[in-house]
């Protein structure tokens, strides 16, 4: 079987100094710049007004009562249940009681929700703008350069990943084009940023992407578009149908069975 001859391409060593290193340095610097830009642009979390705090915590109180009802005596539970259910049903804890019964406001018109969306927009813009600029820069100056040869063999599948922008069918996948080096930098510089900027930096975009995929479930509970009155009504219903049991019932027998004096 004939040995496939090893491809050799004579490259100007200057390619290495004037393409590979500049791209890497520029990527690191933009990452740092983006980190500081995000830090500067970030708005402090908006302070909640007292009625809003009251609304949320009163709901949590009902949830707590439902979850931990076994700790208090039936009489105490009954009193609390009646109080909370009637208060929930009349909307006594609502942020603005006169709005009770209206349909949920469009989240777009709610200024608080808009602010949250603006924050997200800012984060996205801080990623998209520099990315576009650098991509344009690389396309304009370094398109079509083959810059390094990887020191290990690769299968043909890697060709599309490593030789973006270089349309040669027969070139060995070990050769790498400048645009591919750029793409590799985007994903590979995470640990460099962690080292330079601390672990919770804004430059590592992988984290940002993760954050967008699954925002915390807790944040959603009181998020925009949720009608607090509906939540109160359903909580009132949950409380009203709850069957109470008391943990102190028979605790003395349980204790006598389990505790042994040595």
């Amino acid at each position: 079987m004939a040995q496939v001859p090893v491809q050799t391409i004579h490259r100007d060593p200057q390619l290495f100094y004037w393409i590979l290193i500049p791209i890497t340095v520029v990527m690191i610097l933009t990452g740092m710049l983006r980190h500081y830009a995000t830090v500067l642009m970030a708005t402090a979390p908006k302070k909640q007004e007292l009625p809003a705090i009251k609304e949320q915590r009163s709901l949590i109180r009902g949830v707590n009562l439902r979850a931990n009802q076994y700790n208090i005596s039936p009489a105490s539970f009954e009193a609390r249940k009646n109080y909370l259910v009637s208060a929930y049903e009349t909307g006594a804890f609502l942020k603005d009681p006169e709005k009770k019964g209206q349909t949920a406001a469009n989240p777009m018109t709610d200024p608080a929700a808009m602010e949250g969306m603006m924050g997200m927009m800012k984060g996205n813009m801080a990623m998209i703008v520099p990315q576009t600029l650098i991509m344009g820069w690389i396309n304009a100056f370094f398109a079509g350069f083959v810059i390094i040869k990887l020191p290990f063999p690769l299968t043909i599948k890697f060709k599309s990943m490593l030789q973006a922008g270089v349309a040669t069918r027969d070139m060995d996948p070990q050769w790498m084009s400048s645009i591919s080096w750029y793409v590799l930098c985007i994903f590979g510089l995470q640990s460099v940023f962690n080292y330079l900027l601390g672990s919770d930096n804004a430059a590592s975009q992988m984290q940002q992407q993760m954050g967008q995929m699954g925002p915390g479930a807790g944040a959603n509970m009181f998020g925009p578009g949720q009608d607090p009155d509906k939540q109160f009504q359903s909580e009132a219903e949950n409380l009203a149908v709850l069957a109470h049991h008391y943990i102190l019932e028979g605790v003395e027998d349980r204790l006598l069975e389990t505790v042994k004096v040595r």
Partner: protein
Amino acid sequence: MSSSLLHPPAHLPPSVALKLSQGAPALLRTTPSSISSYSLSSLFRAAETPELWTVYENLMLSCLRTGDEQSAHLCLERLTNRFGADNERLMALRGLFQEAIAEDDAALQIVLKEYETILNNDPSNMPVSKRRIALLKTLTKIPEAITALNQFLESSPTDAEAWAELADLYVVQGMYQQGIFALEEVLLITPNAWNMHARLGEVLYMAAISNDFEANKYLSESLRRFCRSIELCDDYLRGYYGLKLTSSKLLSSSSQSSKQSKSDTAPLPTSTVERLNELATAKLSEIVRRSAGGEKGWTGYDQAEVIAAQALLDQDKVSITR
């Protein structure tokens, strides 16, 4: 940096607090005086950690406890440099510092005025409203403190700390019913806090001995609370102490009057109470013996509590021999 600086200093024994505050000047010298978040130099220095600020806060509290106001002020200044003077938590800390250096009640009144101005501008400032309540308590204006706490809990009913404080204030005032209610709220937030179960048992016991009406109902409820707290935490001294106290009381009262008042739960049979009393006595003497012997794993008890348990046991012995 010792790890005890990362815990809130309220529960540190005085000796530890003293040691921490004596080490404060050295610690303050070794840590950088200011860390700004956006500067190039932060690239080359050790990264800022949240622990550092926790250490500053706790160090300040320890220093205030031991009277090292200079170090406390330094801590406060560094925290202010980092987080800004209008940070809610720092406003409360600064108020705390001013309370600590206040010479007399008049100075405290001025601090109280300041708190009220802050709260007028921003009623949702939770740390400062808590400080205001604590200051009212310091000035022995208990009814005002209770009113303020009730207002606070109106808007923030999931704050276990505030409910517990309210319970204490009510008990001080002798309003046991209200105290019991507040402690039940604490238990609804922290269902497995055995110390809160025991505390509720204690308040129920106090309620039982302060009024004859329905005393038995309270006593058996109290006994069950102590049982629950022991169930949650083995070898809990306060739980056994209360268990012994309530069961003895129940035994003596049931021999006087056999009539059982109506209660939520089934009445306790006398035999069970007797067995519980025996169990508590045995367990208490075991704890006292092992703790006095310094056995491994038995040394964590509070000295005062062990002595109290010993006294309770001795009392029992005297009444038997008599």
